[in-house]
């Protein structure tokens, strides 16, 4: 039982810097906005879609059923089921594969995958000792017990905990991990800046030609990605001071992604379902692969997708030459550059258990409509931004063209997916 799964549409709200125009919007608000824009454009108002899967990396405890609640606030039929999934920055791609796999197996005829994150509205929790004391006080049978428990609160317990973006096992932030990888793979500052400029220019050009007209709906007065700087230049980026890797570091705020707010969604279905709903299939979801590296053992945290890419291409009997477009998530400019070097590195690839180097990628095929450096990176939303973007780019190029998506994620993980235009 195998059905062809096609991407028939996508929608996101423009992404924006944390603390910017979406400061008052919650993850629920933004995910609902992304869903409602998709529903309006594809005429699915009141329709019971097979399933909706989405997630957020920074998640409030009250949002335990974030996606289902957003579905209930949306124009979809309230009988549309939903679930929350999370795989750090790969969430939006992993939810796409969850829905796609169910459709392929015949369990669904349609579904929506998505992701959302608000770095502005990040959950703040009480400190661990305070939480334990409060739980003990709550469980106490009488006032005396409650008072006894509460009397143990110390001033130091009262400082709130903001979510940390460090790896629990290494104590290093994502940027610090990448800085090590950047140095190890000898990625030059100028190359990083050049890639960042290219990302801004490519995204600006895509906006300019109306590419995003059926991929984005405005929200809270924002009509375009608010992080995008169409006029940025190599000279301007060269003036920025390094933020990771010490004073000799090469990674700056200009070639690293900004903390962002945003939401994105992808509409998937069988070809029959797409036809019945008068929707044009853009691309078929062909295959996907997940991989992880031993970063507590010193492996490059953000290069986990390399192993996934090699295994996926091998399984499909393809080489990089067969891939027309590459979407490599720009966690940092150096992530993309290190990934490309790793693909060419015979020893590194063999060390991952691959048969040899993956190969050299044609730079003109990478992130042709810009990526996270220019668009922003609301963690869980990024995969769901990339999938419809790539599907539409492939559709423009014609049937049979192939695209590969590579997304790195916290925990030393990576997800890679293959799309083919129909």
């Amino acid at each position, binding site marked *: 039982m195998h059905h062809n799964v096609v991407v028939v549409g996508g929608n996101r709200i423009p992404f924006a810097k944390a603390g910017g125009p979406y400061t*008052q*919007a919650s993850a*629920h*608000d933004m995910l609902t*906005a992304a869903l409602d824009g998709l529903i309006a454009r594809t005429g699915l108002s009141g329709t019971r879609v097979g399933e909706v899967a989405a997630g957020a990396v920074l998640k409030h405890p009250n949002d335990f059923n974030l996606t289902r609640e957003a579905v*209930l*606030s949306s*124009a*979809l039929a309230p009988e549309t089921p939903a679930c929350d999934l999370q795989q750090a920055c790969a969430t939006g791609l992993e939810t796409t594969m969850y829905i796609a796999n169910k459709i392929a197996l015949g369990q669904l005829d349609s579904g929506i995958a998505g992701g959302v994150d608000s770095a502005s509205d990040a959950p703040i929790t009480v400190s661990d000792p305070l939480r334990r004391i409060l739980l003990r006080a709550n469980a106490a049978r009488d006032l005396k017990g409650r008072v006894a428990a509460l009397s143990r609160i110390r001033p130091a317990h009262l400082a709130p905990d903001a979510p940390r973006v460090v790896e629990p096992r290494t104590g290093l932030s994502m940027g610090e991990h990448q800085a090590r990888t950047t140095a190890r793979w000898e990625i030059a500052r100028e190359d990083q800046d050049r890639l960042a400029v290219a990302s801004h220019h490519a995204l600006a050009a895509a906006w300019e030609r109306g590419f995003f007209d059926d991929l984005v709906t405005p929200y*809270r007065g924002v009509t375009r990605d608010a992080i995008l700087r169409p006029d940025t230049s190599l000279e301007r980026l060269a003036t920025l001071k390094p933020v990771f890797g010490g004073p000799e570091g090469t990674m700056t705020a200009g070639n690293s992604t900004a903390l962002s707010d945003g939401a994105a969604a992808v509409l998937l279905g069988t070809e029959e379902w797409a036809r019945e709903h008068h929707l044009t299939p853009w691309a078929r979801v062909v295959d996907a692969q997940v991989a992880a590296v031993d970063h507590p053992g010193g492996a490059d945290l953000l290069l986990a997708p390399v192993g996934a890419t090699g295994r996926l291409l091998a399984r499909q009997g393809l080489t990089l030459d067969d891939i027309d477009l590459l979407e490599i998530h720009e966690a940092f400019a150096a992530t993309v550059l290190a990934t490309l070097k790793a693909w060419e590195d015979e020893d590194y690839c063999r060390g991952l258990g691959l048969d040899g180097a993956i190969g050299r990628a044609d730079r003109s095929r990478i992130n042709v409509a810009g990526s996270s450096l220019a668009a922003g990176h609301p963690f869980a939303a990024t995969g769901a931004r990339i999938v419809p973007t790539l599907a539409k780019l492939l559709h423009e190029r014609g049937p049979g063209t192939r695209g590969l998506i590579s997304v790195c994620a916290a925990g030393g993980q990576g997800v890679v997916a293959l799309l083919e235009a129909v």
Partner: protein
Amino acid sequence: MSGVERLATAPGMGKAFARALLPGTRGEGRIPDHTVELAPQRLDPARLADYSRVCHFTLRDRVPATWIHVLTFPLHVHLLGDPRSSIRLVGAVHVSNTMTLHRPVDAAEPLTLAVRVENLRPHAKGALIDLVGEARVGDERVWDGVSTYLSPGAHAPGEPVPVPRASFAPADPHALWRLPQDLGRQYRRVSQDPNLIHTSRLAAKAFGFARPIIHGMWTHARALAALEGRLPPAYTATASFVKPILLPATVGFRATPTADGHEAAVTSSDGAKPFLLMGVQRAS
């Protein structure tokens, strides 16, 4: 004097409210016969976000109909604080409300707001008046609303016409809402209605309530928010405020689909007694 009193900025609620607190004059009820119109105001997006949060709406670019009512409310206060009005807002009871959103309205659209008072008529307990509001974008009417208030003790000539009661059958609620003690304060912040009966126990007592009561337009908004995913692009929402809800409270909510919309009730937690009856219908 009929005509239009044009305001460039929203009237300050404090002063107008103080005037609206003065006891109404005895004898035959009088209402101003002019319209107050407020030029489009720059809206603080944070206030709509706060309103959405307090009333449980998802924060959208398209505003709920009840939000436009909130925007017109200072004009209600201003009009009934007018010396030509013998009817005062404080002490008056909001008995019913009807509003129509003629098309989706974006939060950023500049709204010209106008309110007039009309239809002074007798009621068994005093007199009824209608505050008739309108919101326009340029010349296009996008929203209108009628808020009916009962002014106890006021007089209007003629025989009281019985007010039709919305039908209600007790039924188990679909949901329970827990309304915290400070909800009145939260809603005051977003509605900017300073009426103390929603926040002060003392003031509530003075008006015959044991505890502060939640604003009827909060309850209306909360009920509308419960249907938000199913609201048509243009709709008419009607509300009958049957009984006030004393804070804090746990109340029931129930909604049933009709041919062209929904009927909903906010009730006691056992579903036996109604506080608010609401209808939502598609508007053409």
